[in-house]
């Protein structure tokens, strides 16, 4: 099957994931990838990612299927890490394969926008001074996800 969803503590191999998408079909002309990582600053040491086992996988599969149909993809990959991740560590990989670049890149944006506020993950920040705090949902992230509800499906 051309949809690949993983929720795991381990790091992922971007090269191997790209190779998988690349070889799905001779019809693949372009691949889009987004990789999110723990951004440093303000003394941040790490993020700890909690999730809702079972529901997470279900939602990510639904998102992937929605992207496959909406953007006429040849394949897509969603990998999300959980547990404690230090500054600089990769958190999430979104990968798409399509006949043309427009579909691949739009689908990549769609998937990361929707995943941010629509899949049951929560981030807790840990700072060098010992302080910890749960990350608040950002209004702009909710707007980005909502915007995909109001735009017509792209066929390009």
């Amino acid at each position, binding site marked *: 099957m051309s949809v690949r969803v993983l929720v795991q503590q381990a790091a992922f191999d971007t090269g191997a994931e790209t190779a998988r998408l690349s070889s799905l079909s001779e019809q693949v002309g372009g691949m889009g990838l987004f990789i*999110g990582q723990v951004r440093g600053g303000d003394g941040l040491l790490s993020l700890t*990612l*909690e*999730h*809702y086992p*079972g*529901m997470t996988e*279900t939602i990510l599969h639904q998102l992937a299927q929605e992207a496959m149909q909406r953007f006429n993809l040849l394949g897509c990959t969603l990998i*999300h890490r959980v547990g404690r991740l230090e500054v600089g560590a990769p*958190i*999430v990989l979104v990968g798409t394969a399509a006949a043309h670049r427009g579909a691949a890149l739009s689908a990549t944006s769609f998937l*990361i926008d929707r*995943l*941010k*506020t*629509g*899949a*049951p*993950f*929560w*981030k*807790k920040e840990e700072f060098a001074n010992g302080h910890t705090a*749960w*990350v*608040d*949902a*950002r209004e702009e*992230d*909710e707007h980005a996800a909502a915007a995909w509800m109001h735009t017509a499906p792209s066929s390009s």
Partner: protein
Amino acid sequence: MTGTVNILYFAALREQLGREGQQVILSSNTMPVATLVQELRQHDAKLDEVFAATPRIRVAINQKLGGFDTCVQPGDELAFFPPMTGG
């Protein structure tokens, strides 16, 4: 007929409540999430305090996002959590 509902808490809610979940016996065969929450808060000062202090609590019924007007039945899995922050 009555029965139990399995409730899960995640993230800040879990931490503030000091528990990962609980089993509760429904007082009727089916009821909206809002009614169940109201009953729980009446009998649980800690839960009342945390729910009062937490804006925008989300609910999932059987691992599917729902609303406080969604009805629960015995055997359901209910989850409460803050807005999601993945990615």
